């Protein structure tokens, strides 16, 4: 058993994005069985955690500071899995339009970046919580 689990609950406030991002970086820097560039991985985990949590705060919880966001990070030998939970109305990940580079709009790049940087991304609607699940292979 070499699994690592980190389970974090923070207030639904963007000021905690950097805490979650930093914890992601800390984990990336200690993944001693990761073959790739660990500093690049640190940025990527920081980013996908920041994007997913910002979506929960804004789109699901409408910036309600009294709510909380739960983030779970699970690492086993082969993969790293991040789950970001929200208690919002949910959305359909599969029907999001891809960003159009020739029409530079200000929004809509968060999930594109997540999908680019992670190997599998899935959004499961549920009661009482929805969850965005992101997996990255480590070998």
């Amino acid at each position: 058993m070499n699994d690592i689990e980190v389970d974090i609950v923070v207030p639904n406030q963007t000021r905690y994005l950097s805490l979650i991002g930093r914890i992601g970086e800390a984990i990336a820097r200690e993944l001693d069985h990761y073959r790739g560039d660990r500093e690049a991985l640190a940025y990527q985990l920081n980013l996908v955690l920041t994007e997913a949590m910002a979506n929960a705060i804004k789109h699901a919880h409408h910036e309600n500071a009294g709510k909380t966001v739960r983030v779970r990070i699970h690492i086993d030998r082969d993969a790293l899995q991040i789950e970001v939970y929200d208690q919002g109305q949910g959305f359909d990940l599969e029907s999001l339009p891809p960003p159009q580079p020739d029409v530079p709009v200000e929004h809509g790049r968060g999930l594109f970046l997540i999908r680019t940087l992670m190997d599998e991304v899935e959004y499961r609607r549920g009661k009482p919580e929805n969850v965005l699940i992101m997996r990255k292979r480590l070998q």
Partner: protein
Amino acid sequence: MQIQTETRDGNLVLSVQEPRLDAHNSDELKDYIAKLLEGNESRLVVDLSAVRFIDSSGLGALLSGYKNANLHRASLVLAGLQPRVQAMFELTRLNRVFEIYRDVDEALAGH
């Protein structure tokens, strides 16, 4: 948010003094740039050399400034991107939208 501004050779150089540009502070940057453009600025150089991390809303705030500048017949260019920040522009192809200079001096020379 810590931002330093300085006028150099008729450009307004705006140095973002934050290690992170994310959904927590990007609106502030966007509003700050919008307010500057209400003055008579013709060229803004945004110095990102202190920024180690940018997310999609940081990119969005800069894009908003860029479009806003064009509306005001001004321009907004970027300078001093750290390699991982530069990589975010490339991943989103926003490097094709912005004029990006190695540092502030080159941005001023490239005028």
